[in-house]
């Protein structure tokens, strides 16, 4: 059988891994019988959401979330940084992902880095327990890749601000209690200097959340309209005008550059090459198992190489001397591009393995694996576009790592 990617680890960690593995096996919920989202990007119905929130709650109650976060904010203050192990085991067991991804992976770590004592005490624990879901209000219709051109404004009032503007592609906004929000607080200042970072309450008056339909036909993201929606003074994170800098920190977490800080992970199973190999053995192309097709074999072998290389690169990024002194940022910044494009190539190859059955869609009784592969292929574009497109990531690598001239 194919390689099981795993590092040799300390006795202590190996023991912890075994413990977590056993716990997940014993506690992971069975399939609820309705369609589940493939990732946190397409949670559309109340029952999907409840199912996922209950699971995160269970993981938290068992003590397997917030391991790396300080104990005074609901975490475990684990000195061994073992949250990564839990995330890996969740993927390995194909257990459901932890739905509060934006809270766990980007809002939480950002609050830890920039929040006041009060903010950390207030917000972190409910992130872990999934009592409060978070969403991210960065993108706008006119400000995507060029995020700093955003125009939503926060006007000061006596006891805080009122927000006016329009955010789009806001994942999970329909279930969120809070939003990490970028808004302009100084229209005179330079593009980057006029932005501030807020922790915005989604139940404020003047907020309208409108679901958007994805190319798969599913819901999951939204547009959010703010019409003089009020928030308190305490909503500000960091300093006034520091928003751009803080946003860059959030994006670093989001793009996986600061690995292992999150409270959990939604990353799909690291054995996805194996999953496609299994699929190719099961399905037939032109009357023969797809696994017999030399082209399918060659291409899947290449993706296996990439998958393994990516895993080893993550491991190398944690080893000082082997992170290559010449280019210390490289291995971290390239992660998102390689990872998301690998996912896309894998799911596309899976569709090709299906032969004509790749033409069947969700709901068809004869669709192999209930059409999860074509669905996954379409959804893979959420990852090459969301969180900074592959193109923008390549600009960043070229400029920040290789010193090439700035494109803009």
């Amino acid at each position, binding site marked *: 059988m194919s390689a099981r990617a795993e590092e040799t680890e300390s006795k202590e960690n190996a023991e912890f891994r075994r413990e977590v593995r056993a716990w997940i096996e014993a506690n992971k919920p069975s399939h609820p019988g309705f369609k589940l989202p493939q990732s946190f990007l397409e949670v559309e119905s109340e029952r999907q959401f409840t199912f996922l929130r209950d699971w995160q709650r269970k993981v938290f109650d068992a003590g397997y979330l917030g391991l790396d976060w300080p104990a005074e904010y609901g975490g475990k203050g684990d000195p061994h940084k073992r949250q990564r192990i839990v995330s890996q085991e969740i993927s390995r067991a194909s257990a459901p992902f932890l739905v509060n991804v934006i809270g766990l992976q980007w809002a939480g770590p950002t609050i830890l880095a920039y929040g006041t004592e009060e903010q950390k005490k207030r917000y972190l624990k409910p992130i872990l327990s999934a009592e409060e879901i978070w969403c991210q209000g960065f993108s706008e219709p006119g400000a995507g890749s060029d995020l700093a051109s955003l125009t939503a404004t926060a006007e000061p009032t006596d006891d805080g601000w009122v927000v006016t503007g329009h955010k789009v592609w806001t994942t999970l906004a329909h279930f969120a209690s809070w939003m990490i929000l970028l808004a302009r607080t100084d229209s005179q200042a330079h593009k980057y200097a006029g932005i501030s970072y807020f922790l915005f309450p989604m139940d404020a008056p003047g907020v309208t959340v409108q679901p958007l339909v994805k190319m798969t036909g599913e819901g999951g993201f939204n547009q959010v309209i703010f019409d003089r929606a009020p928030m308190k003074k305490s909503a500000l994170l960091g300093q006034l005008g520091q928003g751009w800098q803080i946003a860059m920190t959030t994006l670093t977490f989001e793009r996986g550059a600061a690995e292992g800080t999150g409270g959990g992970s939604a990353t799909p199973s690291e054995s996805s090459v194996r999953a496609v190999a299994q699929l190719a053995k099961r399905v037939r192309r032109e009357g023969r198992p797809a696994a017999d097709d030399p082209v399918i074999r060659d291409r899947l072998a290449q993706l296996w190489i990439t998958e*393994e290389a990516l895993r080893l690169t993550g*491991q190398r990024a944690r080893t000082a001397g082997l992170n290559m002194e010449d280019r210390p940022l490289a291995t971290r910044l390239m992660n998102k591009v390689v990872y998301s494009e690998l996912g896309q190539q894998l799911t596309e190859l899976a569709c090709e393995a299906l032969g004509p059955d790749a033409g069947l869609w969700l709901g068809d009784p004869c669709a192999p694996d209930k059409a999860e592969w074509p669905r996954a292929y379409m959804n893979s574009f959420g990852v090459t576009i969301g969180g900074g497109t592959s193109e923008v990531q390549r600009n960043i690598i070229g400029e920040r790592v*290789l010193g090439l001239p700035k*494109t803009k």
Partner: protein
Amino acid sequence: MRIEVPTDFGYTDEHGLLRGEARRFLNERLPMQELRKRADAGVAFDRGLWKEIAQLGWVGLVLPEAHGGAGLGWLHLEILLEEMGRRLVPGPFLGSLLAGVALVEGASDAQRARWLPGIASGDLVATAAVVDAAGAFEARDVASTAEPVEGGWLLRGRKTHVVGGADAGLVIAPFREPSGAVSLFGVDLPAAGVCAEAETCIDPTRPTARVAFDGVRVGADAKLAGDAGAAWRAMLVRGFAALAAESVGGAESVLLTTRDYAVARKQFDRQIGFFQAVKFPIVDMMCGVELARSLAVGAASALDQRAACAETLARMAKAQASDVFANAVRKGVQLHGGYGFTWDCDVHFYFRRAMWSRAMLGDAIHHRRWLAASLFEG
């Protein structure tokens, strides 16, 4: 199969020291003008340089201390070969390395004592004749024959692309016995019946030769005493890892050169690196190099651990590094424009190295075929 390498790959400060030392030495001793001089003069092998790097401990780096080697591991070698690949170090290093491995893995103590110290000291240039008839190199494809005769063996066959074959004093090569079993033989050169003819190699820094064995009589002690199948496989796997590491170094060099050119060269009043049609291929080159490097380092670490996954990782590394190096030179030439098409531009030296190294010991197509079998049927 589990792919296991230690979290830190077994990396220590000592590895970093070797990298620094190698880089310093090669920057001083083998600047590009020096390499060009040799290429123009048609000198791919220089005994003086060979002795120098032997004295640095490089030729015997992974050979046992008991036989004059440095007794270091494959991660050390990975790092050294990356540096050597960056500088296109000319000479028969690869051949010598493979011969040494074959002896370590498949020879008797007496045979090791006879040959290894000379190899490590640089006095004996050794090589392994890996490529048999029709370009095949895996043990099952060996067509050359060994016929038992009074007091020894009679060897017949043709080997090609033998690195350092025309300069070697020892060649290790596989021959098939009448029973069908493949054995390894060590043949001291020159020898009656052995004709080593220098090839015109696409890479002027690689001295290669066609070596014909036209009924060569060798003594019984020429046959390596150990398990030939295991030794051959061990040698190949290490060869995959070694060529991968060297190719990573070569690709790294092309990446840096191309990056520098994209920063320096201006057209349309801009540095050409501003254009994304120039920028993105360079970024992809870098991502490719880093991925290949991770595999090369992973394979080396697995070899150090004698882990079962070493062969898988070494083949992955060879496949990836071959393609990454080939892609780097393809883009490297293109992005240098007309200058890139000239003899004056250094990139073609790397182009030649990439062409040779990809073709040798299995290209990506070859290794992916093996990997697919392991993925689907393994």
